[in-house]
């Protein structure tokens, strides 16, 4: 259907007005620094309590399978999980299946360790208090390999330190020896791979955090107890921060999220009311 130049200009202007509205409702909450209370979701609570129930010295495998494109949603989750692990004295074993996310995960881990070190005054060292295994290709084959012999799959960590006699990996020969795993994923390889090739095979409790886009697809796994908990999107990260009683970036984003969603709901309802009004007008014209 060819449109007239005037129509195209009107469409373009409508689009730009909507873009400006979206930008405004995202930026303004930060300028007024307001906050809004909310109740964490039940699945975020289940994941939190599962991690919280682990004893000091327990090993938690954290697989951060995402790249910078999803960092806005998953970095806050990763940071909250790491803070929780360090606060409880757990030993996080961190890795990633996404080559484009390696440096981002390494920076996050190092920054969080430094922050905890500053807060507690106690050293938090790689190889002793946490391990960063880094990345290896192989996805599901890597998980199977880790399930048989983790130290053979990763004979050195990201910093080229041998894993065989690493204090942080004492007692961990394979995935069968870890106390829990949490996968934060933005796509494939991700949570389903960890369920099928990891937790279902080697029988360790698995929690998940995903982008909001992926979260609805994982409900069947929650209901079948293949996942012990789920954090969905930025709201999931905010839920975890609230349970941890350490509000951070995700909590700060909730007001902007509220306003943008409300804007979209108003736009959808408004557009459909226009449609209904048009239909009624046409019907009246026909009846007349």
């Amino acid at each position, binding site marked *: 259907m060819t449109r007239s130049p005037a129509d195209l200009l009107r469409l373009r202007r409508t689009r730009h007005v909507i873009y400006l509205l*979206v930008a405004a409702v995202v930026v303004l909450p930060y300028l007024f620094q307001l906050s809004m209370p909310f109740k964490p979701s039940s699945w975020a609570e289940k994941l939190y309590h599962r991690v919280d129930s682990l004893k000091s010295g327990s090993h938690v495998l954290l697989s951060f399978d995402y790249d910078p494109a999803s960092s806005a949603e998953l970095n806050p989750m990763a940071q909250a999980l790491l803070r929780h692990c360090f606060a409880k004295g757990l030993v996080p074993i961190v890795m990633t299946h996404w080559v484009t996310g390696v440096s981002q995960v390494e*920076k996050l881990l190092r920054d969080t360790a430094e922050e905890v070190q500053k807060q507690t005054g106690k050293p938090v060292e790689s190889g002793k208090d946490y391990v960063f295994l880094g990345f290896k290709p192989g996805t599901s084959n890597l998980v199977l390999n880790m399930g048989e012999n983790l130290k053979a799959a990763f004979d050195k960590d990201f910093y080229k330190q041998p894993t065989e006699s690493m204090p942080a990996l004492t007692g961990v020969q394979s995935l069968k020896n870890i106390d829990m795993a949490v996968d934060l994923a933005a796509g494939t390889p991700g949570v389903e791979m960890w369920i099928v090739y990891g937790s279902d095979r080697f029988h360790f409790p698995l929690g998940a955090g995903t982008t909001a886009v992926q979260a609805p697809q994982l409900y069947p796994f929650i209901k079948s107890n293949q996942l012990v908990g789920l954090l969905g999107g930025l709201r999931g990260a905010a839920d975890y921060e609230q349970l941890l009683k350490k509000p951070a970036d995700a909590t700060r984003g909730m007001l902007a999220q*509220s306003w943008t*969603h409300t804007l979209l709901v108003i736009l959808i309802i408004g557009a459909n009311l226009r449609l209904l009004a048009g239909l009624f007008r046409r019907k009246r014209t026909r009846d007349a």
Partner: protein
Amino acid sequence: MVYKRLIPLLLVFVIGLLGFVQEFVPHPLSGQFREEMTMWFRVIGGFALFIGAYSLLHMHVARIRRRMAGWGYSVFVFLGAAVMIAVGLHNGGLGPLAAEPQDRMTWFKWGYENIQVPCSATIFSILAFFMASAAFRTFRARNVGAALLLGAAVIVMFGRVPVSEAVGGWLFGVGHSGVFPRAADAIMEYPNLAAQRGIMLGVSLGVISQAVRILFGIERSYLGGSDE
């Protein structure tokens, strides 16, 4: 020809059968075989980058050579790749065989944090604007199915943000502030669960039938190339 077609197909069948059988064999040899095979695929996986890199670079070389529309921009692909590889190999003066230095910033890390990360994060966030624009211009409930879709979308969108608790409390009373979040949860845990489970079961049956077709040589598209 035998070595170009028949032997690869036989290899698929034999390895596939071994992969299937080892799942049910508790003998330590089965575990050792699995460990060996998974180590093989870890090594092979490292070479896969060359294929992706070649495909991408070949496409941009063709654009430059044929002076296609916008060919000048393809130069920046090579520039970005060349600079990142050069600084990566330089590795803060330690060379390509050493681990990345942790005590200082390198040009490689700088390029990742200040070019790749912001571009990657921003390019997908643009969709937020397009979504808002599309919501106003095109999302119309013209039939029952579309009305159900939009209704569910509106309830879930609104129920998953904190403002819904405030609005719920204002509309239905302080004790009922969770109306919208509970409605969103109900949609996720009943109709969404049912449909996702149905899709999952259907897809799984498809995956199994495709795997069987591959093992028996009926599906051969992965071999690529001509039919020789």
